[in-house]
């Protein structure tokens, strides 16, 4: 047995160990609500033993081996994987919700596209029952304006959504860079602070929190080198290691949208998950898909309405008419190189240009033929002038690359003209449609669609008839009936009516959005479950700490009592001598 002083030392070590334990306990309790805090556990072990002459082995007391974080690193890996997926689904399902709100089909139905289309066709049907009525004509114009502005508004908001997503991509990249910088700094600090086997617990807690957030943003993977260094990768490419750090940067990519790349190599970054992927997928795939569907619908409506309208007469015939679209080159073939958005519509054919009296009696009509590859704006103007040279009824000019047709200066003052044959023959070449002569809509897609300004100013030019008779409703009837016709719209290979096409869009949107938010909800549950597991393992339970508090307190009291007992023994010894 050792000296009585070594017995006193055992007591001292006991007191010290309980004091440390109490300290750690207090820290645990204090941090019960701290995010990312891992509970600490004191590891005690007996100090070395001594063998005395008698051969007996005695313990020498207790020492505090380590203060450990209670943490399951495998759980961290799983959780971070799931958090990456959740981040992605969270962003993409939110984007789908926005698209649904923009389509606004089930909400207040005042402005939804399906309502506007329905009202537009109805207005034409009503007009077909009263083509002479100016008030009804105005209502067709105003429903056309509403339809056009609904298209433009939807397009504007979808484009706006893409821009917002793009901005979010930018901020996410910045956040990743900031987090990476902090991580790298922590790596350096941890390597410096740690002295095996003791770990820099607070620094590690902070680092784990950063990695959690990073995996939400970009689905990162990590590798622990064991010496306190943690490397982080985005889709296999190194982001941060012990001392090195790489940054991401955004550059202007296609149509003003950011492309994300590595600053040092210039390689494109393709995250495998995380908010960044969710944002980029929504921006580049999901939203554009719906923009192109809305666009295709607008384009088809413009084409079909204009095709019929350009072959009709209003209550008033033209004294002068100018094509709505300027060509880029008046000597280039109209079907290629003249820069017409609907140049594909130009086929071999032609149209009647007829001079009439204001009362609607035919003076002279001439067939203007269009040949793809040959006909240019200038040749068409020349043909018109040649056909009407003898009578002087009409003259054609090309003014700033637009075709202008007007009643000849020498013609009787009541001369007017029309683009419809006296027997109702319409343009077979698509020339009028492509150059926007006598059309209802102007523009080519959901961004540019509008009602021709000529019609906005004078509804009498609204084409309802295929003759000059005011009660003729053939064209109005045909336009109203477009809703029952089927077309291969956009990239569709199946012919559908406008309504059906739009319904497919809504059905797809609804189903995709439902799928995405369903997946997101499931993923939330998964993440929640893992988080609970982690909390169960690493979190602080106050009851447990309080219980420990009592036992530590008892141990401390006992150790103190032991010291005072030894002290008494010493006193006894001293008083004897």
């Amino acid at each position, binding site marked *: 047995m050792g000296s009585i002083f070594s017995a006193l030392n055992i007591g001292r070590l006991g007191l010290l160990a309980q004091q440390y334990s109490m300290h750690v306990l207090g820290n645990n309790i204090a941090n019960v609500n701290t995010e990312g805090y891992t509970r600490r556990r004191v590891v005690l072990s007996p100090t070395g033993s001594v063998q005395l002459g008698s051969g007996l082995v005695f313990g020498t007391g207790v020492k505090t081996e380590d203060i450990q974080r209670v943490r399951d690193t495998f759980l961290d890996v799983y959780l971070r994987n799931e958090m990456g997926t959740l981040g992605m689904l969270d962003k993409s399902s939110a984007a789908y919700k926005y698209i649904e709100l923009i389509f606004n089909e089930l909400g207040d139905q005042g402005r939804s596209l399906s*309502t506007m289309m329905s009202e537009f066709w109805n207005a034409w049907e009503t007009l077909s*029952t009263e083509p002479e009525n100016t008030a009804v004509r105005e209502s067709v114009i105003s429903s056309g304006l509403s339809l056009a502005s609904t298209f433009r508004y939807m397009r504007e908001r979808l484009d706006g959504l893409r821009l917002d997503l793009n901005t979010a991509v930018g901020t996410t990249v910045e956040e990743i860079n900031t987090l990476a910088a902090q991580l790298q700094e922590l790596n350096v600090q941890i390597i410096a602070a740690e002295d095996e086997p003791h770990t820099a617990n607070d620094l590690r807690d902070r680092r784990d929190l950063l990695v959690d957030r990073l995996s939400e943003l970009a689905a990162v993977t990590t590798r622990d080198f064991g010496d306190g260094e943690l490397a982080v990768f985005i889709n296999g490419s190194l982001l941060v290691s012990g001392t090195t750090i790489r940054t991401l940067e955004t550059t202007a990519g296609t149509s003003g949208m950011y492309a994300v790349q590595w600053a040092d190599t210039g390689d494109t970054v393709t995250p495998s998950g995380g908010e960044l992927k969710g944002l980029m997928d929504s921006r580049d795939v999901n939203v554009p898909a719906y923009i192109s569907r809305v666009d295709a619908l607008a384009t088809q409506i413009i084409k079909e309405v204009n095709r019929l309208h350009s072959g009709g007469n209003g209550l008033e015939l033209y004294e002068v008419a100018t094509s709505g679209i300027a060509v880029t080159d008046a000597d280039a073939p109209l079907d290629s190189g003249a820069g017409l958005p609907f140049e594909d519509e130009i086929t071999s054919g032609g149209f009647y240009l007829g001079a009439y009296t204001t009362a609607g009696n035919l003076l002279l009509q001439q067939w203007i033929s269009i040949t793809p590859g040959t006909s240019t704006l200038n040749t068409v103007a020349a043909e018109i002038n040649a056909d009407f040279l003898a009578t002087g009824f009409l003259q054609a000019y090309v003014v700033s690359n637009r075709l202008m047709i007007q009643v000849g200066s020498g013609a009787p003052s009541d001369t007017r003209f029309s683009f419809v044959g006296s027997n109702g023959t319409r343009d077979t070449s698509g020339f009028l449609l492509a150059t926007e002569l006598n059309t209802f809509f102007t523009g080519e897609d959901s961004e540019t669609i509008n009602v021709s300004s000529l019609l906005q100013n004078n509804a009498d030019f609204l084409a309802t008839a295929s003759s000059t008779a005011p009660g003729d409703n053939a064209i109005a009837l045909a336009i109203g009936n477009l809703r029952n016709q089927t077309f291969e719209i956009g990239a569709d290979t199946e012919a559908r009516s406008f*309504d059906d096409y739009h319904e497919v869009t*809504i059905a797809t949107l609804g189903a995709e959005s439902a799928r995405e938010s369903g997946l997101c909800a499931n993923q939330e549950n998964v993440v929640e479950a893992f988080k609970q597991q982690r909390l169960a393992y690493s979190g602080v339970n106050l009851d447990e700490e309080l219980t420990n508090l009592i036992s530590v307190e008892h141990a401390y009291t006992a150790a103190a009592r032991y010291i005072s007992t030894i002290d008494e023994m010493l006193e006894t010894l001293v008083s004897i001598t």
Partner: protein
Amino acid sequence: MRVTHSMLSDTAVASLMRSLERLQHVQEQITTGRNYQLPSENPTAATQIVRFTSKVAEIEQYRLAISNGIAWNEMTSTVLTEIEDLLAEALDVSERFSNSAATSAERELAAATIESLLEELVMTANRSFKEKYILGGTRTLTAPFTAQYDGDGELITGVSPNPQGLTGVWSYRVSEVETMRMNTRGNEVLQPIGQGFEGDVFKVLVRLREAFEDGDFDAMATEEGELREAISRVVAINARVGSRVNRLEAMDADLETQVLTYEGQRSELEDTDLAEAIVEFNTADTVYQAALASTARILQLSLADFL
């Protein structure tokens, strides 16, 4: 399993949120009166709702055209009946006085009556409805018939149609697949050409009047025959117009049933069943309250209270 205090509060907050979300969803259904706010809540129902809504709007439009068409054809029928009556009256006058028993004064009176009937016929044939000439073909804004007078400007010598023609036909769309002709052409009624018939009803009356002025009994008999044919023609046309009205009315009844069906289906999908929603609301409310109560109880407990 080890349970920590963060877990307890996290779980409590999450379950409170879920209860509240359910409560909010039902509340939204009740206040908006709609089952679904976004297509993703039920994509199939959403497309059906959109389809039924636009279908109803479309059918209502056809019904509007039909009701316009009925009004138009009823008006046409009235005009045709008036024409029938005028012609019948002329025939009646002629038959009464086209014999040797009638005095020349009576014949003169007959001639004057026929002339006034002719004038009335021109006016009736030029009747318009909603500012459209009923018998004008597609030239709805120009009077279809113009009377020519003799040198004194007193007697009608003939009636000429609008030089731009009365032949135009116009139709209304009355269903998704069908358009129906609405107008009755003036030339068919009063001046048919090339149908084994001398044709011009106005001319018949002019000649009948002249026959009475001249006392030409043979001519009277001939024109009476022509008049009978003219009447039977107008009656036949009027019968066609009448059957058109009947068909339109039948179609309207049919479309009305369709509207009710579509409307019923739409309502079933879209409109909130209030009774059901309120029961659901109460359930959600109870669940929420229970969650609140238990959360409050559990979060209060601590060992510290007992030490």
